[in-house]
C-alpha cells in the first residue's frame, strides 16, 4: 500500500540542501491491518536504540511497535489492552502522549479515550473510565500498568524527571496537572491550569523541571526541587489577531538543543519560539517568527504544526498540515527552518493521500535520523494508514 509513496514529489526549492527523496523513508507497521493512526505517541530509547510508537485502530485497539534503528526491524509488541490487563470497561482509544525514556530504561507513556464514546458519554458507566500511566521495557519486553490518573479523565501527555523518575501528566478534558511518583505510588493533582481546550504538550528541561501553559499561553513551570508551580509573567509570542482558541491551546511541539541550552517550541498559533530554560525561574523567550513565509491566502497563525525535530545541523524540521489546516490546500509540506538565519525552505510536498499529518517531538536516533509518526488519508471518511517517517537531512536513509 505504501508503494505509492515512491511518488513523493520533491520541491525544486531544495537548492543547496541537496536533500532528495533518498533522505526520507516511510516505514510500515506490521501485523496490524486495522491500523488507523498515531498521535504524538512516539519516542526514542537511547539505551536500546529503538523508536517506539503506539498505533491505534481508533476504536478499541492500540498496538505498541518498536523500530530498531540499527537493524531496521519493526516489531509488533502486542495489544495494549492485553499487555496492561485492561478489562473491557477500561477501553483505551489511543496513546496520545509522547513515549519517553526513564532512567530505568523503561519507555513511559499514558493513554487516552480518543473516541466519540469519551466525548459524548463522558462521566458515565458507558463512557470512558480514565487514562493510565504505563511503561514498557524495550529489552525485556516487560510491561507495567502504573495505574490511572484521574477517574473519567484521559492523560493527554506525559513527561518524566530523568533524575527523580517522577512523571508529569495533563488530564483531558479538565486540564489538571498531575505529578506521579511511581516509586512511592504517589499521585498529586495540582489542579486545573487551562480553559475549554486542553494544551496537548508538556516538556522538560535538563534539570527535570516540567513546562506547560496556562490559558493565557504563559509558560507554567513545575519546579521539581520545590514541588511547586511557577507561572511566567508574560504570554508566549503570538501573531496579532490570533484567536482565543489558539491561544488557550498553547504549544504543539518542541525540540531540544541541550548543548546550546535552548528548547524550540511551536505554538498552536504557528509561532516558532526559542526558549532558554534556567534551573531557577522562568527562562528567556525569543520570538523566531512564523512557521512559514507569509502567504496572502493564509493567516499567519493558521498553519498547523503538531511536530518538530532538530537535526544535527542545528536546523529545525517539521511538517505543516493536518486536521484541515494546511499551508497549501490539501497538501502537507515538510519545512526546514534555520534558527540562525530564520530562513524557511520547503523540502517536500505531499498530497494528503501520501501524507496527511505528522506528529511527534524531538525524536532523533544516534545516527542523526529524525522520526515522525505519520499517516496518509485513504478516503474522505477518515480512513487513514499510519506509518513511521524517517528523515535525515545530511544523508540517505534506509527503511
Amino acid at each position, binding site marked *: 500500500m505504501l508503494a505509492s509513496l515512491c511518488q513523493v514529489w520533491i520541491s525544486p526549492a531544495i537548492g543547496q540542501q541537496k536533500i532528495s527523496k533518498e533522505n526520507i523513508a516511510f516505514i510500515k507497521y506490521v501485523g496490524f491491518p486495522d491500523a488507523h493512526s498515531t498521535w504524538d505517541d512516539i519516542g526514542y530509547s537511547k539505551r536500546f536504540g529503538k523508536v517506539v510508537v503506539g498505533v491505534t485502530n*481508533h*476504536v478499541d485497539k492500540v498496538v505498541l511497535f518498536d523500530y530498531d534503528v540499527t537493524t531496521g526491524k519493526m516489531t509488533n509488541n502486542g495489544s495494549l489492552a492485553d499487555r496492561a490487563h485492561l478489562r473491557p470497561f477500561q477501553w483505551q482509544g489511543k496513546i496520545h502522549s509522547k513515549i519517553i525514556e526513564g532512567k530505568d530504561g523503561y519507555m513511559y507513556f499514558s493513554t487516552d479515550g480518543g*473516541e*466519540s464514546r469519551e*466525548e*459524548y458519554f*463522558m*462521566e*458515565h458507566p458507558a463512557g470512558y473510565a480514565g487514562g493510565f500511566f504505563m511503561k514498557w521495557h524495550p529489552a525485556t519486553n516487560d510491561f507495567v500498568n502504573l495505574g490511572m490518573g*484521574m*477517574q*473519567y479523565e484521559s492523560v493527554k501527555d506525559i513527561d518524566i524527571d530523568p533524575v527523580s523518575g517522577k512523571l508529569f501528566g495533563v488530564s483531558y*478534558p*479538565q486540564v489538571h496537572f498531575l505529578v506521579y511518583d511511581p516509586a512511592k505510588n504517589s499521585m498529586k493533582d*495540582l*489542579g*486545573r*491550569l487551562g*480553559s*475549554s*481546550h486542553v494544551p496537548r504538550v508538556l516538556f522538560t528541561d535538563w534539570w527535570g523541571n516540567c513546562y506547560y501553559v*496556562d*490559558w*493565557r499561553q*504563559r509558560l507554567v513551570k513545575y519546579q521539581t526541587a520545590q514541588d511547586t*508551580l*511557577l*507561572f*511566567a*509573567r508574560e*504570554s508566549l509570542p503570538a501573531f496579532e*489577531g*490570533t*484567536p*482565543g*482558541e*489558539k*491561544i*488557550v*491551546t498553547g504549544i504543539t511541539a518542541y525540540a531540544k538543543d541541550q548543548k546550546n541550552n535552548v528548547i524550540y517550541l511551536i505554538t*498552536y498559533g504557528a509561532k516558532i519560539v526559542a526558549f532558554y530554560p534556567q534551573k531557577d525561574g522562568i527562562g528567556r523567550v525569543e520570538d523566531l517568527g512564523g512557521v512559514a513565509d507569509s502567504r496572502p491566502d493564509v493567516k499567519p497563525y493558521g498553519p*498547523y504544526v503538531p511536530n518538530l525535530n532538530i537535526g544535527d545541523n542545528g536546523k529545525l524540521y517539521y511538517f505543516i498540515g*493536518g*486536521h*484541515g*489546516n494546511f499551508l497549501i490546500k490539501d497538501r502537507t509540506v515538510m519545512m526546514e527552518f534555520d534558527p540562525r538565519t530564520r530562513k524557511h525552505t520547503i523540502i517536500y510536498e505531499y498530497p494528503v493521500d501520501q501524507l496527511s499529518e505528522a506528529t511527534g517531538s524531538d525524536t532523533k536516533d544516534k545516527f542523526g535520523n529524525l522520526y515522525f509518526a505519520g499517516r496518509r488519508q485513504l478516503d474522505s*471518511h*477518515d*480512513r487513514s494508514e499510519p506509518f513511521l517517517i524517517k528523515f535525515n537531512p545530511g544523508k540517505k536513509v534506509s527503511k
Partner: protein
Amino acid sequence: MKIRFIKNLLVLGLVGLAGPVFAQYSYFKPLEGFGIEASLSNTSLKRMPMYRNAITSLTVQKDYIIGGTTATGNRAPFLFVASLSKREMLTLKDLNDEVPGQTSIRTGFFRAEDKALYAGTIATATGSGHLLRVVVGADAGIQVTDLGTPVPGEGVFALTGDDRRKMIYGISYPSGFFFSYNIVSKSFKVYKNSGVTPADLAILVHEYHQKPEEFLSGAMITDGQGLVYTSQPINRLVVFNPADESFTTITELPAVWGRRTLGRTESWTKTADGLLYGGNAGDGQLFQLNPSTRKVKNLGKPAMMNRLRGLCVGADGKLYGLSGALPGYVHLFSYNPSDEGFTDLGNPQFILKAPGIEQGIEWRGFQLSTITASEDGKYIVMGEDEALSQLLIFPVDNGSPKE
C-alpha cells in the same frame, strides 16, 4: 464507515479547531453569557492567586458580586468584590489581614436587612472558626468585623439567619453542633445536644469511612416563620424552632436505595410562594419542602452524579442549580415547577475577556461550587471550585436564558 465519518468531524472540531463541530451535545452558551477572570497567578492584575480562590460563598448586591473563598493547605481565603456591569474584579481582601489562621469561607452569606453580610470561617488544623460581619461600601471596599468564635476549636460549616429575630444560626465543624448568635446582644449559644452522636459517628466514620464534610449539613435555611431547616445524621431533615429551642425530625431526606447514609442538605433556596427547595448531597436529589404542611416532595435527580451544591431562583421563576461534582462534571440545570420540570443545561461555556486576552477565550465550567441570582433575578452568577477559579454569569430574560 459512519462512525469514522463522525469521528473525523469530531476530531476536526476538537483537535484541529477548524470547521464546524459535529456534536451530539453542546455546551450551555446563552447570548450575553460571560466570564470574569477572578484568579491568575503572578500578575499585576487584581486576581486571586492559585489555591486560595475556590468560590464557596457568593451573593450579589446591586452591581456587586461578593464572594468568599476556600483555600487549600494552610493558605488563607479571600473576600472579593467584582462588578457585574464592568465585568471585572474590583476589590480583594486577604482574610489573613483581618482574622488570621483561617482557610475557608464556605457557609455562603446571610444578608441582613441592613445589607450586612454574615459568614463563617473554618480555621487551619488547630484553630477556631469565626463568625464574620461583612459590609461592602459604595466604593466596593470590604469592611470585616470579627464577631468571635461560635464554638471553640470548631469551624463554621453552614449558616443562615432571621432578620425578625436578629439571629444567626449555624453548624459547627467538625462536630456538627447547632449554634445561634444574637446580633443585638452579640452572644453565642451552642446546643450541645445537637452534635453528631457517638453512635452515628461509629457508623459514619468507622464503618463507612466518611469525613465530617461528607455527613454534616452544608446548608441551612429559615422560613417565613423563623423556623430553621437543616439536616443531621443519618439522613434526617430537621427543623429548629427558636420559640422553644427544640429540634424536630421532619422526615428522611429523599435517598437512593442503599445510600441514605450519605444524605445531607447542601443547598437551599426559597421561592416567592414561600416553598423551600433543597438539594441532597448524598445522591443529588432536588426536593421541595412545604413549610406549612412539612411535606417533602422528591423531585428527582437532575443528572446521574451525586451532589447538588447550589440553588437559586431567576427572574423567570425557574430554579437554577448545580448538579454533580468530581469525579464527574457539574451540570447546570433549571427546574420549572409549573410545567417544564428539569432541563439539564450541561457545562456552561462563556467568553472570558480581560486585559491581555481582549479577543476573548472560552471558559468551560467543569466544577462549579456556588450559584446565586442578582437582586432582580436577571443575572445568574456561578463561582468555580478549582485551583484557579473564575466567575461565570448569564442573564435570564423574561422566562429563559437568551439562547
